[in-house]
């Protein structure tokens, strides 16, 4: 979408926005504008300043310098309340919904003032139909898939009749079919004149969807382009500011000894809205990278905990490491045998945010790396090990004494992955290896996983990111409501086939996902 010929002002214009935090300039003189009806991509690595910028537009943060123009007039957005009032809506990456409440109740909570519930109910049905976002207002959130939850958030925004919709990494949790459906909705909104600010690092999506892209790096605008004509590689290079390294992909290798074997693993969940694991089975050979795909909330957490040993199973032989049954062993005994894990959540699970990087090395490496002997911590050895991780994995940190929380997401992830890989595990189980991680760090993590596999380890990658799994894995299977599909070779898998496995096993027809069921509920 090009500039308005009539010279009408852009819907949103940012002029030289600067925002400083102690020790860092998050946005440095950022200027760009979004026309009415334009789908505008905001592209950048993690830490490039996208979130800060968006928070300023949504009134959560306030710029130190610069102005925000709305339809040509300077505005001050004191808080999200004010932003919503002029017509800015935002769908956050992490949803803010109450699991135990209905769609209607959740939406009513997010609206300003008191709502007439019956009218609201009708409005929700009306809006959701108009934009192809089928929703039953009476369903409780915990019964919804992630894609449906996102619809709740979008409908909540649409009810306020936004003129600008901000979408923060909206597709990271969707199946390919759900992505297509979302794009349909966004294109419809755009055609009706609603501007969309689309934040993502998935370049192919931006090419498919967006009219214009602004690329941020280090808090500054480093480029603008028309995504339709610019290559993804070109955009990636602007984003990273360097030539992209091509991954040293390994060729096909003969299947060798089985290192990791999961056989008929069943586990009842201990969580209120958890998923029971049902007869899960797969094998990982030496040097193989095995992927477990699936939309979040299909038992990934339970599977991770069962594989790592945080949950033990009664039948020891349902998990075997180099033939040795370990199902009944806890985390440390499994680790001692060479099974290392990287949990999905960095903060508070894989790492303790308030502790130093050195202390965080003790969390999982204290015994394998002999950082503690006979119950006594060897602080020097611990610091050296942390220093080694920082060096070898290019972690940007002041040193081993930096608190884990002071690192950016990508750097902390590199540290955590490094911590496990430097322990030379026999088998590594890793969840969401590059979730919320910038492209540079993601490439480094992928390369490290390749190298580990090259040296004969078996690797299990649990991820929602299909592109990532197709890049990394030799074979993959899909986890759906606690069951694992058959494994397919990634070499001959198509996106469609995997997408159908992901959505299809949900108990709905993959051709018309969810529309049918929900429409009936509504009627």
């Amino acid at each position, binding site marked *: 979408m090009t500039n308005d010929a009539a010279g009408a*002002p852009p819907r949103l214009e940012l002029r030289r926005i600067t925002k400083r*935090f*102690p020790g860092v300039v998050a946005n440095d003189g950022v200027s760009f504008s979004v026309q009415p009806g334009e789908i505008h991509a905001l592209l950048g690595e993690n830490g490039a300043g996208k979130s800060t910028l968006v928070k300023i537009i949504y009134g959560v943060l306030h710029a130190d310098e610069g102005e925000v123009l*709305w*339809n*040509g*007039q300077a*505005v*001050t*957005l*004191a*808080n999200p*309340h*004010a932003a919503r*009032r*002029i*017509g800015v809506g935002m769908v956050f990456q992490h949803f803010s919904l109450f699991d135990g409440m209905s769609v209607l109740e959740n939406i009513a909570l997010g609206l300003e003032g008191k709502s007439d519930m019956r009218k609201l109910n009708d409005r929700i049905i009306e809006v959701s139909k108009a934009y192809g976002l089928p929703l039953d207002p009476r369903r409780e959130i915990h019964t919804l898939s992630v894609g449906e939850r996102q619809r709740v958030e979008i409908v909540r925004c649409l009810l306020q009749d936004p003129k600008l919709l901000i979408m923060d990494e909206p597709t990271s949790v969707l199946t390919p079919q759900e992505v297509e459906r979302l794009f349909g909705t966004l294109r419809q909104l755009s055609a009706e004149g609603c501007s969309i600010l689309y934040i993502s690092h998935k370049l192919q999506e931006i090419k498919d969807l967006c009219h214009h892209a602004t690329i941020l790096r280090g808090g500054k605008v480093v480029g603008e382009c028309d995504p339709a004509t610019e290559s993804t590689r070109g955009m990636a290079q602007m984003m990273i500011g360097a030539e992209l390294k091509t991954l040293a992909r390994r060729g096909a290798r003969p299947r060798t000894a089985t290192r990791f074997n999961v056989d008929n693993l069943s586990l009842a969940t201990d969580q209120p809205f958890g998923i029971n694991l049902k007869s899960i089975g797969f094998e990982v050979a030496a040097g193989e990278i095995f992927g477990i795909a699936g939309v979040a909330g299909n038992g990934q957490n339970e599977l991770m905990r069962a594989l*790592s*040993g*945080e949950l033990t199973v009664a039948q020891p032989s349902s998990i075997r490491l180099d033939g040795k049954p370990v199902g009944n062993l*806890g*985390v*440390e005994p499994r*680790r001692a045998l060479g099974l290392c*894990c990287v*949990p999905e*959540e960095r903060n*508070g*699970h*894989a*790492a*303790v*945010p*308030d*502790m130093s990087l050195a*202390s965080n090395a*003790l*969390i*999982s490496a*204290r015994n394998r790396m002999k950082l*503690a002997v006979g*119950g*006594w*911590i060897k*602080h020097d050895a611990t610091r050296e090990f942390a220093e080694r991780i920082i060096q070898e994995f290019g972690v940007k940190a002041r040193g081993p004494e930096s608190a884990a929380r002071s690192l950016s997401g990508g750097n902390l992830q590199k540290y955590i992955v490094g911590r496990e890989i430097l322990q030379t595990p026999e088998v590594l189980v890793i969840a969401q290896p590059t979730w919320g991680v910038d492209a540079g760090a993601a490439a480094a993590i992928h390369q490290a996983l390749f190298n580990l596999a090259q040296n004969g380890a078996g690797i299990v990658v649990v991820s929602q990111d299909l592109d990532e799994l197709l890049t990394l894995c030799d074979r993959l299977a899909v986890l759906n409501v606690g069951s694992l599909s058959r494994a397919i070779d990634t070499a001959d898998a198509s996106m469609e086939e995997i997408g159908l496995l992901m959505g299809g096993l949900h108990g709905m027809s993959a051709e018309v996902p969810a529309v049918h069921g929900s429409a009936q509920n509504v009627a």
Partner: protein
Amino acid sequence: MSLKFEARREIPRWLVYGTPLLAIALTILSGYLLFMILGLNPGSTLYIFLVSPLETQFGLAELAVKGGPLILIATGLAIGFRANVWNIGAEGQLTMGAIFGAGVALAFWGDEGVWILPLMFVAGALGGMLWAAIPAFLKTKFEVSEILTSLMLTYVAALVLSILVHGPWRDPDGFNFPQSRLFTEAAILPVILEGTRLHVGALVALFAAAAAWVLLTYTVTGFQIKVVGQAPMAARFAGFSQKGTVWFSLLLAGALAGIAGMVEVAGPIGQLTPQLTPGYGFTAIIVAFLGRLNPIGIVLAGIVMAISYIGGENAQVYAQLPQAATGVFQGMLLFYLLASDFLVRYRIRIQSAKPRREVATA
């Protein structure tokens, strides 16, 4: 208009250690105003309260006598608090420790033997551990909040003590006073400094604080306690047992509180009485927080608290202040400490109901 609390992004380190000093300063200032309102000479009353305990050798020794049990108990509590185990019932564990220690003293009443005191230490520790084991069991088995159980057990312990001193353990020659017999020589802690009541209890407390510091700084167990407290999920990932940590920290705190109770009866009191302490078990909670849950800080905080006890007694005698003044002082100190801690972590923002500058739309 509304008040909003915003978490601060970064908390400077000096502020974390500065807040106890700020709290002490504010307490003194409030005390000054309080004494003024009561019609006393605020300067001299404060002097009696805060400085007079430090002026004589006897006063200094008393500081150690009172500070010892506070430090001992607070050290145990702090380790629990670090692990998110909220043992509020140290007073009950102290009482049980005193009962067990006194049991040994009374069982071997009149006997000579250097083994009696060590046995009393062991018995005191076991008594406290036993009492702390109940909340630990209920917490790990049924997920019952240890805050409630440990606190309630304090009152049970007080009743057990009352039964004993009114009944089976009452001194037969004690004119029906609810007290046990006075312990004999072999069951009394030796005085270290002639002319004072200073006994080995203070040294035990310092040793415990030093040991706790080593535990927290150099051992995997100490690391485990911190990880369990700060990030339970990470603790599971690390292979640390949550339940084990609950048991460890409660038993440790129980043992130290039990020893503190035994040291009281075998030291300054010399017999079992219905009212053993001026609430050391509860005051130790303040000491633990005033000392930033850090064993070295706890030693300093224990001394500050001991001053408030002795100063309070002095003020009763010389300034005719009511006994409650000590409690008021300690309460203010905790109040200011919590308030300044909160303000270090959060900043207050006053917001008008409507955004101050309304937005102009085209």
